[in-house]
């Protein structure tokens, strides 16, 4: 413990220099901005700023880049709550209840909950990095293709719980998501699937194109067709900006659970971070006394997932810092930023460069604190934005959507595709179909397929590989139990209505 405090002391000494505080603030501000804007993500921003960091001290450069990454997690929830626009996979579920809260006049409370839950999760996850980084990294390394497949299967079954309408519709949406995820080049054979000879489809459909189309554009079309008074996003008057006592007592246990789940799944590369916010939402709905509140503005549906995605963002640094293995594209860029300064990321960074390692860990906590300080006063301003007449607001949102989608791959084709998904999103609204399970199917489907086929190749076609590996077997058993829980009410009563509680 003493050793641990000494290390943290070293870290804070580095992170609290005026220059490094400035870099953390710059990163947090840039991150918040790009998080709010749809489509423009942390990957592109960090790639563009990378050459700037050549001239900085290594630790300063890393502090700024890390700030952009987790700043984007805070910013992403803002557009999700205010205008139903998920910029990143992690903010898709925040749309469900966060935007409903905004419609009920509780936008301020939703934004404050998101910021506070994220800060809490960030604090806990940073402490976890400091104390448990090496053992947690080993968890990630024990995951091979069979384990990932089992985890994704568990996630997909859990997706049914995401919907608050009929289970049949939720399953249909998941399958539609799986089908959309098939588009592109098959990684195992390089065959073209559902590309209809469009070269631009050969890398598949971009996540943001689908999400911005179905959620953002679809929502705008639906609002415009409602006409008259209800066009305003503010169906009710804004009450107070901060959460009420009742809301806080519901939100904090949710944030606690979300943090635990997010911190654990964040360590896994690939789909881990995505699963954490979806998983947290499912968990909240399951433990809630009255699950029917979900989808209508339940505060736990904001607190849990927001805590989970920020905790996951922080702990995704663990495999990079301790093993030199990047879990996602942002971490790969961080490795690039280190190598430019001649630092080889790996197990030796902690011992050979303690000021760099601990300085970064300390700065993450400071950066999270800064984000809270930036975000809380901003809430008042964001909420004012909702008072803008909808006929102006929707034009601005549409414009940002178009710019955001275009910049992902500098392609007008993507913009047209997003517009088409917008129409689809409107059809979903009319048919009462939830888009969130579709998005989860879209994200997890290709990963699941890839890992299943890889696992079967590794075993030479023997399905026993899923039974012989303890972690995979455990996850599959958990998936089976969850399936029974989801199906049980219908088996007992055989009535469609019983599904709705699932």
């Amino acid at each position, binding site marked *: 413990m003493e050793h641990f405090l000494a290390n943290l002391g070293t870290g804070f000494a580095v992170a609290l220099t005026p220059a490094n505080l400035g870099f953390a603030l710059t990163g947090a501000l840039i991150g918040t901005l790009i998080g709010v804007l749809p489509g423009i993500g942390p990957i592109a921003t960090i790639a563009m700023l990378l050459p700037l960091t050549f001239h900085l001290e290594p630790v300063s450069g890393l502090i700024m880049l890390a700030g952009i990454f987790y700043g984007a997690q805070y910013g992403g929830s803002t557009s999700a709550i205010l205008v139903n626009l998920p910029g990143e996979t992690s903010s898709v579920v925040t749309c469900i209840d966060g935007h409903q809260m905004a419609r009920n006049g509780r936008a301020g409370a939703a934004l404050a909950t998101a910021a506070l839950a994220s800060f809490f999760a960030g604090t806990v996850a940073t402490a976890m990095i400091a104390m448990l980084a090496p053992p947690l990294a080993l968890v990630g390394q024990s995951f091979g293709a069979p384990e990932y497949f089992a985890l994704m299967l568990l996630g997909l079954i859990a997706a049914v719980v995401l919907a608050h309408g009929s289970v049949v519709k939720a399953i249909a949406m998941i399958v539609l998501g799986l089908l959309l995820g098939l588009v592109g080049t098959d990684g195992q054979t*390089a065959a073209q699937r559902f590309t209809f000879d469009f070269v631009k489809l050969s890398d598949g459909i971009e996540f943001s194109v689908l999400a911005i189309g179905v959620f953002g554009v679809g929502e705008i079309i639906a609002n415009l067709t409602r006409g008259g008074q209800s066009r305003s996003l503010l169906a009710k008057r804004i009450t107070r900006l901060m959460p009420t006592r009742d809301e806080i007592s519901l939100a904090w246990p949710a944030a606690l659970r979300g943090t635990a789940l997010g911190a654990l799944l964040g360590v896994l590369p690939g789909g881990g971070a995505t699963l954490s916010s979806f998983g947290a939402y499912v968990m909240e709905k399951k433990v809630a006394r009255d699950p029917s509140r979900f989808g209508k503005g339940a505060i736990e549906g904001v607190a849990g997932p927001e805590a989970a995605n920020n905790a996951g963002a922080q702990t995704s640094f663990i495999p990079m810092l301790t093993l*030199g293995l*990047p879990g996602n594209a942002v971490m790969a860029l961080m490795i690039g930023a280190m190598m*430019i300064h001649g630092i080889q990321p790996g197990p030796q960074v902690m011992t050979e460069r303690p000021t760099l390692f601990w300085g970064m860990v300390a700065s993450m906590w400071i950066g999270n604190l800064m984000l809270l300080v930036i975000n809380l006063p901003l809430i008042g301003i964001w909420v004012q934005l909702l008072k803008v007449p909808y006929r102006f607001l929707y034009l601005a949102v549409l414009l940002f959507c178009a710019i955001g989608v275009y910049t992902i791959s500098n392609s007008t084709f993507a913009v047209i595709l997003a517009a088409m998904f917008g129409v689809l999103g409107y059809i979903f609204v009319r048919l009462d179909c939830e888009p969130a399970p579709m998005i989860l199917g879209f994200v997890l489907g290709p990963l699941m397929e890839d890992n299943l086929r890889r696992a079967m190749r590794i075993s030479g076609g023997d399905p026993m590989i899923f039974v012989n590996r303890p972690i995979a077997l455990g996850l599959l058993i958990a998936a089976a139990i969850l399936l029974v829980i989801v199906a049980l009410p219908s088996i007992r009563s055989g009535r469609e209505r019983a599904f709705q509680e699932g």
Partner: protein
Amino acid sequence: MKRTGWIIAALSCFALGAAASSGSWAQDKFPVKPVKIVVPYGPGGATDIVTRIVAEQMRQSLGQSFVVENKPGAFGIVAIQEMTNARPDGYTLMVGNVSTNAITPVIVPKRLKVNYARDVVPVTNLIDIPAFLVVATNNFAVKDVPGLIAYAKKNPGKLRYGTVGAASYPHYDMAFFAKRAGNLDVVPIHNKQGASGIINDMVTGDVQVAFLNVASTAAQIRAGKLRPIAVVSPTRLPDHPDVPTMKEVGFGDVGTIAWNAMFAPAATPRPVLEALHRAAVAALETGAGKTALTKQGFIIAPSKSLDDARTWLANEIKAWKTITSAVKIETE
């Protein structure tokens, strides 16, 4: 009203003069406006980072912005077509790698709407990325190339190798190696997550062998999780003097030294190409650019001249035609 007439006359004189001068500038001075460099991958990958480093140095030496534009998609086809559709005036360039600019034109020429050999010219090679043939140490005792071949012969269908996808160069490399080593029966395991995904598969013991670039394996080699048994490079690496080259172990024609190179539309005027070549080579060899690139494990490898670059690309294409006809991988 007379005054307006004067103003218009004055303005048009000025505009004419400006136009005339810019016309003559364009003849002997390049560039006079920002240059666009198309990159066939999204931001953040190796090709993107190399391009941004080179672009920054060229901006400083030529005094115009070099704007990097990411046009990912379809193994580089989107980017190649973006460049060849632009006016061949030197203001639209491309930086690609061995996959997009040597393998794609060989394996899917039909999907390219241009005649690659006729419409695209290299300006210069930029950097080389040496690769290791690495084996896992988790539950795997092979320590050298002859040992690997012996293991594969004794255990047909049991040796699994990592690649980043079907018909990617690591796939061709190992398939070609297996063929040259005596038609070994080995199994490819494709991992879309790239080098880090393959390394994870090797650490868990699911995959035993792979060609991986030197920089991404360094941490795991130091940690003892991976063992390099040969290097794809003309000479041994100073940091790993014990690791023999592929040539030394008898497979001089196997393995890819991945590269990044700059390309332009073939109809670009020769003086403009010359100017670009000089500036790009200078960007690689000057202080900041050189430091940034070598620290990341890239080897600075500029072409000596435009003609040298053409010969080099022709040889690369020829080599890939040989490999892809020796090892058939269905891609459609």
